[in-house]
């Protein structure tokens, strides 16, 4: 058995735990040709620079704006979808619809953006049609002001169906006799939803909210990088793309690492905090004192 753990542990060491240690360059003036051992230690200077870097604050603001949009517009969609699918009586329609809405999850972000471009882009289907009808075109894909909405719609299109699975599973696990009893007592469909379905989903909703809040600083990477040129940094720069442009493109390795490290630590703290709140609410949350099964 120990032998079987070796490949996995080796992988974790090489591509997770050693890179974590590599974060020390956030406290250095890292020079690639000197390496970690040869570079000078500068303490918290990189974090201070970050604090005074307006681009960082733009990235942080965009990240939070996008996260709030996602929370408000994306989060309820899978739940609503699951309720609708669950109310379908025809099994055939249900299966057919489920297979279809899961599909976009398996497409890459590059593909999703390409598809959106072909439909909504400046030379895309919708704008072509508008032009043919003699109307003004609408810059759906390049307008920085509406970018958060666009990005959220892209996310909904890609992942809402997939996110629905988990709600469907918990809906299926609600005891059917509860509904029967409630109906016998005269509860209509809305009352049954309010008093049976939603309480039955409560813990899974709390769980997903925690995960979402813990992930609030990771709104996604590829999606924003791919549209960075089209809408400009002012609207599409998020913490992850900032790290990339400052570090890999700009050669500010230490600054990039500092931004990444700050993000990682804050994200982990947010998960712990949210989990604590869930416990206060009497929900199991993602992890108890005893981690694992």
């Amino acid at each position, binding site marked *: 058995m120990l032998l*079987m753990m070796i490949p996995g542990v080796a992988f974790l060491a090489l591509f997770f735990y050693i890179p974590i240690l590599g974060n020390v360059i956030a406290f250095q003036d890292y020079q690639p040709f000197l390496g970690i051992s040869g570079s000078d230690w500068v303490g918290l200077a990189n974090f201070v620079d970050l604090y005074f870097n307006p681009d960082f604050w733009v990235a942080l603001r965009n990240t939070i704006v996008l996260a709030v949009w996602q929370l408000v517009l994306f989060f309820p969609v899978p739940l609503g979808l699951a309720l609708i699918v669950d109310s379908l*009586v025809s099994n055939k329609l249900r299966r057919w619809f489920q297979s279809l*809405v899961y*599909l976009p999850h*398996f497409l*890459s972000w590059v593909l999703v953006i390409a598809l959106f471009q*072909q*439909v909504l882009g400046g030379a895309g289907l919708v704008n072509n049609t508008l032009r043919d009808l003699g109307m003004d075109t609408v810059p759906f894909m390049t307008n920085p002001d509406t970018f958060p909405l666009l990005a959220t719609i892209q996310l909904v299109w890609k992942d809402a169906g997939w996110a629905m699975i988990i709600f469907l599973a918990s809906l299926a696990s609600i005891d059917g006799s509860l509904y029967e009893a409630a109906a016998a007592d005269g509860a209509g*469909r809305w009352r049954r939803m309010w008093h049976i379905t939603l309480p039955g989903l409560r813990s899974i909703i709390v769980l997903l909210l925690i995960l979402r809040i813990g992930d609030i600083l990771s709104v996604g990477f590829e999606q924003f990088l*791919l549209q960075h040129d089209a809408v400009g940094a002012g609207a599409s720069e998020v913490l992850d793309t900032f790290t990339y442009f400052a570090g890999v493109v700009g050669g500010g390795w230490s600054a990039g690492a500092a931004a990444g490290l700050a993000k990682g630590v804050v994200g982990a703290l947010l998960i712990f905090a949210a989990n604590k709140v869930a416990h206060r609410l009497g929900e199991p949350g993602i992890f108890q004192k005893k981690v694992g099964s």
Partner: protein
Amino acid sequence: MTATLSGRRATKRLNKQLSFNPGRPAWKEPASPLYGTIKAIIIGGISLSIVIPLLLVISTSLADDEQLIAAGGFVLWPTHPSFAAYQAIFSGEFMIRALGVSAFITAIGTFLALFITITMAYATSRPVMLGRPVLLLVLFTLLFAPGLIPMFLMVKQLGLLNTVWSLILPGTFAAFNFVVMRSFFMNIPAELIEAARIDGASDFMILRKIVLPLSKAVIAVVGLFYAVGFWNAFFNAMLYINDQTLYPVQLVLRNYVVQGGSMAEAIGVTSTPPPQSMQMAIVVVALLPILIVYPFLQKHFTKGVITGAIKG
């Protein structure tokens, strides 16, 4: 011929009758016309929003010049399907090589990833020495990410920059897939494994002869997740690959479709079809493998995800 057909139809009908269809529970009232209509609109609208873009790119990639020009660039149904765009993108070596790179990283990557995930998940699913600390090591990866820059430096340090291995190795283990796999293994009765052990089977033998044959469904699901991940990986390629000959399909898609780079000279083709349909053909090439494997595997994945999500 007719006999087998009608026989098949009869079997189908019988299967339908036998298959569990609870129908409408007695307590559930039929939807009122208003709610029924709203529901139909929502379901229909969502379905169309997924089908139309896919149909659009496939049709446009197949449309011939005349129709394309007449329709102003987009076609929802090709009247005279032509493969000119595909011939054009495959006339140079560039696209074929990109497909080769993507196929290679998907195949090798999925194999390695499954190997690591299965061994690790099986070992930690049994009460063994060090099982718990190793489990914690894995679960911690769900909480914290090492960050982009340290990962880049690590890959660089290992000398993997500009090799296909930079696209494979960093993605060969995902904690989520591990959790799915492990919770499946934990449901395999311990007696079965004990019995094999008493008969003198080694751990590897038990894994190969008993556990794996019982786990085909979950292996299919996790394998699909990994394969899709490798096929779709764009960011690693952008980060680690400069050499054009090592571009995977997703990077080609970004450079020549999303960013609209001039394809003809980069890909080394003599462009006769309109660039529009060539772009669409690249989109379809990136899309097709997913559309092909999807129907075979999608019946498994609900179950796979749910075992992972609920029990993890």
